[in-house]
């Protein structure tokens, strides 16, 4: 490893990004979709509450957005820290 400091900076940046992403991942599925359902039952969507929508569709949309956001950010970080594939 010629750039040891840089690469550990790269790894820390990656871990930060993963943490933020997984918090959102858990919030939309376990939070909005399951545990927070009683609190959100007042918000109505198409004949039911918003938690039903999150559990059956909303979480999936956020999952897709999260993966593409992560891939895009990481590919930029790869270049920034000089660890991208040439």
């Amino acid at each position, binding site marked *: *490893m010629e750039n040891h400091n840089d*690469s550990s900076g*790269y*790894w820390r940046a*990656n871990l930060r990004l*993963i943490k933020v*992403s*997984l918090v959102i*991942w858990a919030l939309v*599925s*376990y939070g909005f*979709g*399951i*545990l927070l*359902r*009683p609190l959100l039952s007042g918000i109505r*969507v*198409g*004949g*039911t*509450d918003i938690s*039903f*929508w999150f*559990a*059956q*569709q909303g*979480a*999936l*949309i956020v*999952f*897709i957005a*999260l*993966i*593409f956001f*992560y*891939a895009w950010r*990481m*590919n930029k970080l*790869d270049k920034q820290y*000089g*660890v*991208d*594939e*040439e």
Partner: protein
Amino acid sequence: MSQFTINIIFVGLSFALYFGIAWWARAGSTSEFYVAGGGVHPVMNGMATAADWMSAASFISMAGIIATGGYAASTYLMGWTGGYVLLAMLLAPYLRKFGKFTVPDFIGDRFYSKTAAMIAVVCLIIASTTYVIGQMTGAGVAFSRFLEVDNTTGLIIAAVVVFFYAVLGGMKGITYTQVAQYVVLMIAYTIPAVFISLELTGNPIPGLGLFSNHVEAGIPILTKLDQIVVDLGFTAYTADVPNKLNMVLFTLSLMIGTAGLPHVIIRFFTVPKVADARWTAGWTLVFISLLYFTAPAVGAMARLNLIDTIYPQGVDAPAIEYDQRPDWMKTWEDTGLIKYNDLNNDGRIQLYSDSGLGAAELALAAATADGGDVAAATTTVEEAKAEHALERDGVFVDRGWAGNELDVNADILVLANPEIAQLPGWVIGLIAAGGLAAALSTAAGLLLAISSAISHDLIKRNLNPNITDAGELKVARITMAIAIVVATWLGINPPGFAAQVVALAFGIAGASLFPALMMGIFSKRINNLGAIAGMLTGLISILVYIFVFKGWFFITGTANFPDTEEYWLFGISPLSFGAIGALLNFIVAFAVSYATAPPPAHIQELVESVRSPRGAGGAIDH
């Protein structure tokens, strides 16, 4: 043209396409056989991974599970998609950088231990074999229903097809065939759903139709569904789940199980770069979601259509007469997947929630006919009758109903959908081809995972490390052929564990493989002993918890406790235990690793290297 001819044409055309692709994509080296030479474009790989992932269960069973479970079945929708977020961030890019062919490859190298690799091989084989039996039987059912051959013949035809393109093409053949299979299964799933959604809601996109108004009733479709199922004594479709802990753990178990399933992970080894592995996860989820957005709509609308068929004048009016039932019910009664039992002898079909009275009556009839325990069955019927009379102040009893009279297997909803919605014959032919595409694409991916674990990890790593590339390719093909024969045999004679795909395959992948892979990448401190102890803890704890409730090795009568919520530990079902097994795995692995010597320097360098994408291209040849 008869429906049979149409089905033959559709299935025949799709098979001709797969054969053509297989011939064009023959594998010439082990790298092509195991990972398609590492040259698959991420969008194409996403499509292939989606087909690999979406099994007979996703295509045939999931909408039925949702139709029955309503909100509670959301677990499957979130669980089978959320795992791709974990794959994209925690596993796929680093395993691609590692640049070898199989999952046990990584575990063996990272934990510098043949034992660890062997445990991974065992986990992989149990999970994948359980899974592949389901695909073979699914294909057998599709053949026997649509092509009018018996189940065994159907299974053998399926095996021959998979044999041709999997043995010839390996991962390369499988990848490009899966792309074609994805297109076939998506079209087959979507077309009937679009027609049904248009008819019920006027919205051509089923996923949006689910949250729209019912055209005739003028109220949201989910509100209408809630009303009529409650009127029939069922739990409301959108009702909340009381046991939230179990729902959370079940969802989590499906997510980590998805991320840890070897046949999914190896698909990420086929792309040229680490960046492509990340994109692949995104594209895979896009392609999977096209089906998963439609599935809840198919489920809800199928349930509504079914109840409308039985109660054409509304659920407060008398049900349909048995003689007036539509043709599709007759067709499916012949297969035994729809059963009718006129308990109150009024010649009509009462479908409602009856405290298990209808099922108890069926059991009593069976016991009387086969000389079973008639006394016990009679007691069950009496108990159900008493409860039935109390239920909802006896409203069903007052209507002269003597128990639920119609038993509909949830699996037929998707297959019968075109008939229920009275769509033309070619749509039914398409559904046949789509169901087969879903079963065969997943079977091929699983068989490749099994055969590469045996030829690469067992034979090359342990028995004959000096085998040449050409020699290993030959061994890989022979292993694949044997795996197909074994899977077919198990499909014809399904063992007790075949029905436990969710518990066994996802439980083991989640409790044993996922934590080991993740710790191998994210911790430099986990050593060989820690990983071995952790994987064994995960594997054994999940197996014991399943066996205690479902019978030891699934032999009936050997279970220690009934498989019901009051007996589960903290209300956690055996299906949800994967997450707990994973937690135990992490704890044990850390405890043992910190109590023993850290991994040697070259292993720590290996971890550094998988974390950095640079240099991934060259690593594939070894």
